[in-house]
């Protein structure tokens, strides 16, 4: 496995009485694109602000590129490009002035600055409005200026807080493409509260809710883990109760939910994890001489999973009982369970 680019251990942040981030730990390796997914107020922005040295953690440690975010803050800030959530920019400046100013802060000399501005103008499609004052730009354009600023000094690590918010559908698609392209040369950590966003862009997802990481893995892995297995849809013609009972008896079937119309039974079959009873069901139907007109495997959508676990987390936070101390799902990559 390649080297760790971002390492977070037991990070906690309190705002007065309220605990925004609650002992999270994770590791991001060089070249990965990782999505930080969670409902609003889950602690995403707080975590990103700690990683970008904007605010210190209450406890725990975080390193970026091997530098500690608290004690080696300047070194960290040199290697990150950060796009904050609502893209704060100096309204009175023109786009090229702004980028040039930011280039100076990153220590680029005149020639390097001109080259960098040219490069990000191209990658972030700034061409038409490079000379316009920022206050005249639409939300989507300002988003691109923010992204250009984050990319200007060719940072090792890109930290993007809700990068496609406020963009139109075409721009969203282009931005996702751009982010995936960037990941070849940069390590990317992006946050979102929109699922398809993360599903479309990231290799790995960290789901955060109530300040804790409640699940992590690739979108496929996460989907797989929904309800422990997957769901089959089958339509079989035959006497309703008999069909249901027989299918229930097939190895690998956990439960069956049936509805019938015109003599066809539409079965929703929950399967045991790691088992595929499709062949057995086909044989059963053939043996009993039942007609089978549809059978498909439906892996649950990430959306469903997301709603499910964030709802559970909210439940736990309300109850605040002993259940809250247990992670909802087994963590991958040897992560510590949230406290």
């Amino acid at each position, binding site marked *: 496995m390649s080297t760790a680019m971002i390492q977070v251990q037991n990070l906690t942040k309190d705002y007065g009485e309220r605990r925004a981030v609650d002992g999270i730990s994770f590791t991001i390796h060089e070249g990965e694109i990782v999505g930080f997914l969670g409902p609003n107020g889950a602690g995403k922005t707080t975590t990103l*602000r700690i990683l*970008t*040295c*904007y*605010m*210190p953690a209450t406890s725990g440690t975080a390193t970026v590129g091997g530098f500690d975010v608290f004690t080696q803050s*300047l070194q960290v*800030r*040199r290697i*990150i490009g*950060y796009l*904050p959530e*609502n893209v*704060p*920019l*100096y*309204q*009175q*400046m023109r786009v090229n002035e702004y980028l040039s*100013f*930011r280039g*100076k*802060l*990153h*220590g680029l000399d005149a020639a390097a600055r001109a080259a960098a501005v040219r490069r990000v103008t191209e990658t972030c499609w700034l061409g038409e409005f490079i000379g316009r004052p920022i206050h005249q730009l639409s939300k989507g354009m300002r988003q691109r200026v923010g992204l250009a*600023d984050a990319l200007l000094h060719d940072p090792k690590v890109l930290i993007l807080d809700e990068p496609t918010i406020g963009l139109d559908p075409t721009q969203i698609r282009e931005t996702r493409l751009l982010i995936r392209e960037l990941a070849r040369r940069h390590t990317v950590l992006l946050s979102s509260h929109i699922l398809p966003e993360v599903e479309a862009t990231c290799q790995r997802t960290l789901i955060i809710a109530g300040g804790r990481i409640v699940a992590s893995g690739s979108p496929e892995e996460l989907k797989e883990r929904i309800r422990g297995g997957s769901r089959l849809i089958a339509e079989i013609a035959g006497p309703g109760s008999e069909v249901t009972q027989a299918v229930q008896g097939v190895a690998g079937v956990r439960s069956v939910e049936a509805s019938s119309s015109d003599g066809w039974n539409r079965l929703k079959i929950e399967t045991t994890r790691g088992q595929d009873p499709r062949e057995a069901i086909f044989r059963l139907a053939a043996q009993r001489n039942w007609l089978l007109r549809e059978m498909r495997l439906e892996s649950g959508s990430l959306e469903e999973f997301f709603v499910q676990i964030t709802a559970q987390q909210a439940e736990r936070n309300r109850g605040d009982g002993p259940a809250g101390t247990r992670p909802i799902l087994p963590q991958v990559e040897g992560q510590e369970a949230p406290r």
Partner: protein
Amino acid sequence: MIRNVVPLTERELSASFLSPIAYIVATVFVVASGHFFLAETLVPGRESSLRALFDSMAALLVFALPLLTMRVLSEEFAAGTIETLMTAPVTDVEVIVSKFLGVLLFYAALLATTLLHVGLLGYFGGLDTGALLLGYLGMFLLGSMFIAVGVFASALTRYQLLAALIGMGALSLLTFVADQLGRWRGGAWRTVLGALNVLGRFEEFTKGFFDTGAIVYFLSGTAFFLFLAVKVLESRRWR
């Protein structure tokens, strides 16, 4: 360590030139200095110096300079740009020093407009170059300490108006209030208040005394308030 001061100061200065309030302050400054000059100096029989002008302008600066400095940090807090600024590789000291220098340069440009009056003085009367230079030095040092107080006030809040009021309040305490109380009280009080009274120190310059103590006083006052501003900026991270 101070590599970023130049680009940051450039941005600060250009922001000053793009802010409407700076133009209002500049207008008031130019009109007021012209008025004081015509009413108190360019009168037959008056001494040929800018002393009266400088003494009147010093009082005006108590209200004018906080209006120039109120923007510097409060605006960054309110607009959120403080986040992009502080996540760039810049230090808190660089940020505060640049905010200070940006306004100081703008103030120096305003001060330069009074060179017109110097020209008129030279035309109609004689010029005491030494006293004149001391007067300008005094105005510059006074301005820099006032700006440092204003930058500190702006670091305290995201509301520009509040920053201006805090700045004016603090400067009034150091000038008018200390002066008035000093007149009423005697003994040790008078000594302490006299030491605090910024305008008293300033008048040493316009009277034409070269007082190294006063120079040290203004420089250390400036450094002290800039130091406080750095500490306030640092402490925001913990909130």
